[in-house]
């Protein structure tokens, strides 16, 4: 870090790559998200037995990860941001699954 100079900032150039792939990419992602949401809603109306819960969880996670990677640009962004965010996310999942497990939550019918 240097606090001395009046500098021309060059750090922003990294953004130009986003400008590269036009906005259509984002529309596609949004479309996919909409379809997945529709699928989720549909699932909750038809009876598919035991596969329902796992399938729903998978769809939910796909949507989650898609927004984080594409809309929040994490896919193209620095590794460090991945570490910071996912460590919070995975820690939350681990801790709260443990928390619910101590209440025998997952043994309920």
């Amino acid at each position, binding site marked *: *870090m*240097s*606090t*001395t100079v009046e500098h021309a900032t060059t750090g922003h150039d990294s953004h130009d790559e986003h400008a590269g792939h036009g906005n259509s990419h984002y529309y596609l992602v949004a479309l996919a998200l909409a379809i997945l949401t529709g699928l989720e809603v549909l699932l909750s109306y038809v009876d598919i037995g035991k596969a329902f819960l796992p399938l729903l969880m998978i769809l939910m996670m796909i949507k989650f990860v898609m927004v984080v990677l594409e809309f929040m640009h994490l896919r193209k962004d620095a590794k*460090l941001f991945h570490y910071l965010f996912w460590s*919070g996310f995975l*820690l939350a999942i*681990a*801790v709260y699954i*443990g*928390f619910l*497990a*101590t*209440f*025998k939550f997952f043994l309920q019918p």
Partner: protein
Amino acid sequence: MAIIEQPRTDVALPAGAGAPAYVTPKQAAGMFARPVAPKGWRDWVFTVDHKKIGIMYGVVAFVFFLIGGIEAGLIRLQLAAPNGKVLSADQYNQMFTMHATTMVFLFVMPMAAAFANYFVPLQIGARDVAFPRMNAFSLWTFVAGAIFVNLSWFLGGGADGGWFMYAPNSTKMFSPGHGVDFWAFGLQITGIASLVGAINLIVTCINMRAPGMSLFKMPIFTWMVMVVQFLLVFAMPVITVALFLLSFSRGFGGAFFDVKQGADPLLWQHLFWIFGHPEVYILVLPSFGIVSEVLPVFSRKPLFGYKFVAISGAAIGFVGWGVWAHHMFASGLGPISVLVFSMATMMIAVPTGVKIINWTLTMWGGKLKFTTAMLFAIGLIIEFTIGGLSGVTHAVAPSDTQQTDTYYIVAHFHYVLFGGAIFGLFSGFYYWWPKVFGRLLNEAWGKANFWLMVIGMNLTFGPMHIIGLQGQPRRMYQYDESNVHTRFWNAISTIGVFFLTIGILCFIVNVVITHRSKNPKVKAPLDPWDARSLEWMTSSPPAAHNFDAIPTVHELDEFFHRKYAVDHDTDEIKQIATAEDIMAEQMAHAEKDIHLPSPSYWPLVVSIALPIIGFGVIYSHIFIAVGAAVAIMGIFGWSMEPSVAPKDDFEPPAPTDGNIKELTA
């Protein structure tokens, strides 16, 4: 606060000399004129300088140490003899709750923040933290929250549910006063302070390091601080949830802890301890960092296994997330949970043991110098190990079932908190005092301080092991005269408090005489301990801009390596430069025209809004609106104010003639 500084040539020139005559503040946000170069108290209150903020954190935290200490003293007076009459049962409950809250949240945490704020930027070769105004915001928010919690004493009595405030015991039905409300909202406020401070310090550690300072060249104190800040970032939101549930239950009739409705009383316990176990590492790891700096310096050896110490610190932090339910072995968790958490808890002893071994091996074969700082560091190793061993006995669930809620537990955690956290902080006081204030604390008073505290703490807390195993419950306001042994050991324990009190008074006396003294000997030399890390490559106290030239780092213990090198003929380590030489070298390459962030009103404005909202929640909802309005105004003013005052706020422009005049106020 220096605004724009010219390079200086005189090392010993104290920061704060000379005042600019020609700085004219301009309207910044269209609201208030910006405090461009304030003087006197305004210089402190509006400052964004990490060093001033660190000092203020320290002063406020120390005041709360005294308050928490007085509360502890009253507890022990009550228990000095059977059927104590000093406090009523109700007052006793408030006393131990507020004692613990004060010590944990208002003393140890902010005191660690004081050290972190002051030394992390210096240790990594930065001029300030990443977000200077957010730093000021953290400080004032902490102060606001701390005062808010303690106001409950005057507004109907303190919180009385114990420091972990188990619900439903802390709901309106069982604790009808406002104490718990003040407690919950006050901790919410200090939680904001911790979270903001933690994000700030992590970004600082990641992004503001001097060139060449890779993560594994960071001084070990900075490492431990960074681990602690990660724990804070992830643990604070958990207590936030718990506190909200409690506040909403008490304030708006939420059902969360209403057993009639089918609530599970373990909900609060889990949430609290998911936060609470990481919290104990938040309390103790900064002190581990401090002694890991002090031991090598006074052993004249590098820290043994630096990477192991750093990584085991991170490992402790990580594993610390999986052991919370060891605080709940007696609550009916069920055998599987008890087994899992018991095993996990025993595992965490391993990285802790690694540290103790590393410290011991650091001293092994070293040329030990028993200064007060060193004595406190050694004291930490011994007392913390005692506390750690009794800790392992609670990890064994069957034995814990005997110990839970007895004085044995009180003994255990005071050995780790007093013998661990507090000894580390005192070691830090003695070690870094000359850096912060340019004066050396008196060693004779220091040694008295140390020995009285060691004797005092072992007399106070040692007997608690015995009375605990004899069955005296904790949080019990009276005991009867039937058991002679408990009577004897309780009396000893209270006598111990007198030693502790005198020990702490010695520290205060030491500070006063050091700062009153006209003896030139108290003035600290540049490098009084022949230290190893970057913070000693500055004047004492450091100038507002810390470093005249940002050093380029090549080694762990950079400062040491600039002073010493191996002589190739004799293979011996020889001094090649003095601290003065190194400083002169820096000055020769001093950077011109250093811009430091400018003071600001806004952090303070936003901080003040929070307790106003708190009063609104407790008393009248109008204040919520008032507080929110103040907060929003503050945030807007803040957003529109550039962090460095624009050039035209200074008239005429800073002199460029290479003059050594410093622009400070």
